[in-house]
């Protein structure tokens, strides 16, 4: 099969032309805070697998209205649009292929982003520049530098940000965090975080063949800032996470959940480790190349060790000289039942309730921070990125969390950012 360089150039050119569409205009017609009886206009960007999961609770809410649906895949977009129109009994919701056109249409006050990781920063930053509040799925970003750029844009433009780290609104994890933070374990010496390894083929089309027809999917726009690769149906949609150009495998799927919870309980979600080391094995597969197995250790200033491993049982285990507390999505256990006895109330874990969506929309009305702010997402995601860099470089990463720089190791430092394919540019 011969590749078609000219077509690739014209792809880029088309992309550049699309990029040349009028810049997203800031929202100006509505005041920044909403009267309680005013419905928040919400747009969905990315309505594949995760986006569809988000659709159900959103469509049932009376305090918002889904006004725009955006997806580069016409099939997903049309299905979702039909569902919304049916639920509302009106054709008011509009469909868009390109998020920039959606933002320009001035139809939304907030967006829910559920896209492959390589797209997250470009979309989130454009939304912030347009004065739109943002709910986005974890992991925060595809690189440390991208994550910082998102945080910067959110702060500069005063946007409300909620990461889809819903475990923060889950009563189970809230209780576990309260127990740890209230000192039940004494000084926590280490945390063991079990995350999944391997991969799951969602498409069943993972042969090494090559496809030229992407059907209703605008593949060039789907690729966006990622390096060019020919279209393969087994690499898009949910399977994007198994290729490092688009996602970060199971490791990055879980950092925004279990790692986030581990740091939150310890009050370390605004800080970072001093050293990260790791070992791992990448997939030997015709079209995937993400981490298959991994074992990462992050060391904090107080000798605290946080280990993230695909070989541990899924969940978060905080350990101290007094014993351990272990939380998963279905159970809360401890080395001694006494450690789980009701105790001191720590408000910061429960102050915004147990409804993750509610928290987001209430924050939009009052402009207060949400339970899952951008900075926390950046800190949990960074551990995953640094672990990956340590594995790729084959040596430990000495990290300076305040400045977010790698200490005296230029070749590892080069991996903190992933270059964008033209004409996309990371704006920070």
């Amino acid at each position, binding site marked *: 099969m011969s590749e078609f360089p000219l077509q690739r150039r014209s792809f880029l050119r088309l992309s550049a032309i699309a990029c*040349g569409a009028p810049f997203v205009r800031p929202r100006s017609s509505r005041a920044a805070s909403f009267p309680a009886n005013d419905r928040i206009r919400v747009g969905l960007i990315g309505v594949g697998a995760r986006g569809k999961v988000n659709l159900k609770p959103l469509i049932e809410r009376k305090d918002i209205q889904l006004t725009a649906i955006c997806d580069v895949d016409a099939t997903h977009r049309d299905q979702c649009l039909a569902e919304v129109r049916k639920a509302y009994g009106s054709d008011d919701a509009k469909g868009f292929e390109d998020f920039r056109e959606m933002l320009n249409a001035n139809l939304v006050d907030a967006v829910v982003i559920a896209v492959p990781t390589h797209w997250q920063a470009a979309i989130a930053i454009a939304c912030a520049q347009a004065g739109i509040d943002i709910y986005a799925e974890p992991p925060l970003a595809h690189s440390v530098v991208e994550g910082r750029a998102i945080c910067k844009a959110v702060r500069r433009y005063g946007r409300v940000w909620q990461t889809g780290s819903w475990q923060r609104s889950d009563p189970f994890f809230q209780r576990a965090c309260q127990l740890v933070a209230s000192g039940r374990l004494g000084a926590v010496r280490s945390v063991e975080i079990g995350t999944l390894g391997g991969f799951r083929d969602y498409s069943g089309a993972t042969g090494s063949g090559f496809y030229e027809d992407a059907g209703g999917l605008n593949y060039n726009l789907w690729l966006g800032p990622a390096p060019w690769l020919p279209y393969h149906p087994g690499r898009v949609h949910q399977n994007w996470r198994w290729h490092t150009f688009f996602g970060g495998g199971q490791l990055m799927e879980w950092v925004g959940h279990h790692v986030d919870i581990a740091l939150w309980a310890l009050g370390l979600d605004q800080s970072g480790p001093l050293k990260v080391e790791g070992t791992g094995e990448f997939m030997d597969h015709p079209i995937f190349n993400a981490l298959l197995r991994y074992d990462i250790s992050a060391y904090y200033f107080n000798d605290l060790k946080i280990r993230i491993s695909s070989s541990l049982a899924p969940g978060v285990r905080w350990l101290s000289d007094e014993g351990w507390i272990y939380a998963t999505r279905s159970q809360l256990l401890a080395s001694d039942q006494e450690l789980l006895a009701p105790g001191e109330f720590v408000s910061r874990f429960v102050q915004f309730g147990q409804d993750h969506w509610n928290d987001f929309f209430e924050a939009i009305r009052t*402009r207060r921070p949400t339970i899952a702010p951008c900075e926390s997402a950046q800190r949990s995601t960074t551990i995953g990125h640094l672990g990956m860099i340590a594995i790729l470089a084959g040596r430990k990463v000495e990290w300076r969390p305040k400045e977010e720089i790698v200490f005296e190791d230029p070749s590892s430092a080069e991996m903190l950012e992933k270059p964008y394919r033209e004409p996309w540019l990371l704006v920070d």
Partner: protein
Amino acid sequence: MAPGRLTPLFLAWGLLLAFIGSGFAQDTLTLLKSFEFGRNRRAWNSMDIQVRAERNRERRAAEQQLIEVLLGRDSTTDAKILACRGLRYVGTNPGVEVLLSLVKDERLSAEACAALQEKDFKEINPALRTALPLAPNDLKAGLMNTLARRRDREAAPVIGKIARSISDRPVLIAALDALGQIGGVEGLTALQQLASKNPDLEVRRKHALLAAAGHALRQDALSKDLALKILNQFMAPSQPPLLRGAAMVEVAMSDKDQRAQLCLQALKSSTGTLLPAAASILSVLEVGEFIPLYTEHFDSLKTPAQILLVELWKPEYRDSKRIQDLSLNTKIDPNLRHAATRAIDRSR
């Protein structure tokens, strides 16, 4: 057998092994060069491992092979793409030199630029600056982006000059964004000079100016002065609230002395359109800066601003009596009462 007679035998074996080895190397290189997407990737999988190798010797060998792929007339475009991606990790002087020779190659410019973006070699920026005006328009955005992410301030006048003379819209947009990323007096000045260039790109230019000012505030004194001047212009009431608020946040983040005052100004904005900026600034205020806002100005603020302050109230901000009263007062806005109740919960 006497040791002396062993030497020629060893030599013969050595030569044979070297011959076989070079054959293997030749075969590997051929496989690397003939790669096409969708075909067997085995040779490149081995190369990926070599690129990630810890030992310098293996990485240098990998670099040499990648260079050979890039220079090979019989290499496919796909193979050259992968070679550029490999050189991003192992490219040293020889690799960088080859990559620089490709930045005007229509098929490989984007890949070469991406590989060079993070590299710390002094010859890269001048070479990219020289290539930029001579490159076809199709390649200019990529070159500008690379210079922008490398924060090459000397590139700003070159990019500015192109932006002033070009009518190609995508290139013009790329130039605005790139100048925003470069910052410094150079980036700010170039953006100012583009003021009347294209009215429908004015908002984009202002966002770029904002980004450039944000960078400039953390650069040299001259850059900082110009950045503050521009940000002060953006803070004028005639500016759109989003830009006005963003300028306030930028100034507040860089100047501790001004931030409480700016926060109060944002809280008092008549239509509430600056509340997002107030929230951003409030998130970095220290206890001592927050207390006067709460104790002295609370009553003069409109309800949305009051709600925001109460939402962010902590026990150390004092005056919990006011919070108690708000939580019990049924005559006030229910959202304010709810915020007060939650603030009490937080203080438990």
